């Protein structure tokens, strides 16, 4: 499923809404999550999961083609932990 398929499904379930509003709704949700993470916040959606940010230390990497050592700076990486209900849903047939 892609973002546009998600928008389409949501639009079909809500025929009273304009498609452009449905698009804005979906975009707003994902943008808000990203903005929160960029601010160092975490986003917890009970039953679905939680997005948070983890730190990665700087390290010396290697250019796989040349074998040359390169400094990889410390950075933040987004992390998602699956919620309990969603995890259970994945495992019911």
């Amino acid at each position, binding site marked *: *499923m892609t973002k546009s398929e998600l928008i389409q499904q*949501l639009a079909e379930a809500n025929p009273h809404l304009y498609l452009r509003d449905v698009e804005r709704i979906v975009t707003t*949700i*994902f943008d808000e999550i990203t903005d929160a993470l960029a601010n160092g916040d*975490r986003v*917890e959606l009970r039953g679905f999961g939680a997005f948070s940010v983890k730190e990665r230390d700087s390290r010396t990497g290697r250019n796989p083609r040349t074998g040359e050592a390169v400094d990889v700076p*410390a950075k933040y990486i987004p992390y998602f932990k699956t919620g309990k209900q969603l995890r259970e849903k994945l495992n019911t047939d």
Partner: protein
Amino acid sequence: MSNETITRAQLSEAVYQEVGLSRNESADLLESVLSIITDALAKGETVKISSFGSFSVRQKGQRIGRNPKTGEEVPILPRKVLVFRPSQVMKARINAKRSPS
């Protein structure tokens, strides 16, 4: 950096501010988005949200685990796990405002 926890309340408030719908309907729409994603994943589909990231389901095989308290061996049954891979856009945005000290 604020270190707060954002929940459904703030996300549906953002939807409410963005589109001229009631707070109730905004909350319902957020819930619908989450359940559409959940249903697709439960069917084993990958969900790709451009400039955000993708959620995919991975099948894990059976392995032998150990009860850390008793040392007893217990089989961990085969199961499905969800993997989230953030997009390059998201990774860039998360490192744009600040960097680890």
